[in-house]
């Protein structure tokens, strides 16, 4: 009881200090007003192929402001998946399924703040996920600094094909805090932190682990808590070109530690072309209970290669072309992206020949984007 009172007191003091700081900075900022996101429409065709998995489909986004105070966004996303991954071909049968995702969100602007509330639902025959989020961004310090904080809550229902009696749930919480800072007339940076918490059925009802060479259903803890921090720096290089670098560190209670490094370069060509290129490197250590082939009986065991020790390197490019532009009315662009990624697993073997597994993946996107 005393500990609870002390914790409440500490929170009150921290909130008061934060409120005081924000109030002081807002006083300096003066009477400015944040802008609503621009009216926008996007039509995307996306395709992924790699590791025996093909996934493709269309996606649509429409955003429109109403009375200059609220902006509504609707999205639809379809994934048609054909799965013959290494897990599937060595321990199960290839399958096809379709995922539909619908999203609706509203942005509201009050003075220098933007408040976003969103709802999303994702439906597969054996997995339903419902997600809600609330995010706030606040410009301070004369518009040079933007503070963002938000919360996501998701609830999933997990089912299994041909086994109607199997049904379980997974709940997810995400809390985030970020800051974007203008450094100079050409450079800006951002720092983001996110805490993630999962509870419930976090395994796959189809995947099997190996213990003493025998296949057993995987057993995964029902809780997981992670922390991620990401830093980004973006700079105008002065010749109609720009660069960006980023780094993210992630750690969680399953003992996964991951580093992600990104670098990108963008440049305009003539009046109508914009090209981007990017390189990404990702590496992680495996979860405590991951094993390619366990040699002792443990409470938890998994052979999910997503939880193993591996790295990947990706190289990509994007090209945008101004199809039509009528200043003050609309702007229409045609875009194409491609990324090649190579995965190398350190402790996940191909059961067919015993060698360490690895694969290459390709992501292709073709899309139209319009602002109006």
């Amino acid at each position, binding site marked *: 009881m005393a500990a609870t009172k002390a914790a409440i007191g500490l929170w009150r003091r921290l909130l*008061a200090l934060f409120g005081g700081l924000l109030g002081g900075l807002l*006083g300096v900022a003066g009477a400015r007003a944040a802008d609503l996101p621009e009216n926008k429409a996007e039509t995307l065709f996306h395709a992924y192929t790699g590791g025996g998995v093909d996934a493709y489909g269309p996606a649509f986004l429409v955003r429109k402001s109403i009375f200059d105070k609220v902006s509504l966004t609707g999205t639809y996303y379809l994934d048609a998946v054909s799965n013959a991954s290494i897990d599937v071909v060595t321990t199960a049968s290839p399958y096809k399924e379709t995922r539909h995702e619908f999203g609706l969100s509203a942005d509201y602007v009050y003075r220098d703040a933007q408040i976003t509330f969103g709802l999303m639902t994702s439906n597969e025959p054996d*997995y339903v*996920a419902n997600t809600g*989020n609330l995010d706030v961004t606040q410009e301070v310090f004369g518009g040079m600094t933007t503070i963002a904080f938000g919360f996501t809550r998701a609830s999933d229902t997990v089912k299994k094909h041909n086994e109607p009696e199997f049904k379980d749930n997974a709940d997810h919480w995400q809390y985030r805090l970020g800051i974007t800072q203008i450094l100079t007339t050409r450079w800006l940076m951002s720092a983001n932190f996110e805490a993630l918490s999962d509870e419930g059925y976090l395994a796959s009802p189809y995947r099997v682990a190996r213990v003493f060479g025998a296949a057993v259903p995987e057993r995964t803890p029902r809780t997981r808590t992670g922390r991620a921090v990401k830093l980004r720096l973006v700079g*105008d290089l002065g010749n109609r070109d720009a660069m960006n670098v980023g780094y993210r560190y992630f750690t969680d209670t399953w003992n996964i530690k991951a580093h992600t490094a990104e670098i990108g370069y963008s*440049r305009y060509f003539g009046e109508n072309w914009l090209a981007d290129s990017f390189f990404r490197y990702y590496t992680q250590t495996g979860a405590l209970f991951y094993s390619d082939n366990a040699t002792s009986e443990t409470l938890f065991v998994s052979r999910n290669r997503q939880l193993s020790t591996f790295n990947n390197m990706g190289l990509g490019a994007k090209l945008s072309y101004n199809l039509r532009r009528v200043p003050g009315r609309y702007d229409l662009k045609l875009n194409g992206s491609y990324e090649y990624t190579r995965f190398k697993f350190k402790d996940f073997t191909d059961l067919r020949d015993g060698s360490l597994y690895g694969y290459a993946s390709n992501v292709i996107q073709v899309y139209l984007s319009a602002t109006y």
Partner: protein
Amino acid sequence: MTARSLAVAGAIAASLLGGCAMPSVPTIQPWVKPYERERLGDPIMKLSRDALPDKHFEHVRVVREGARGATGFQGGGCGCN
């Protein structure tokens, strides 16, 4: 220190940072004025230009890697892995 006195201290500290301070104390003003931010407002400088394709890249990574979060994109749950 009470919550109210902390709030006052915070407001004073922020005011000092922001330039509403007493004349003898050096102050920090926003050093990049709104009219100097033209380059920063160019689409080439945006952390994310188009929501759907960036969300797709994020989705492709989240279902294949152990790490998540702090990217600024809203991910929904799925049984994709």
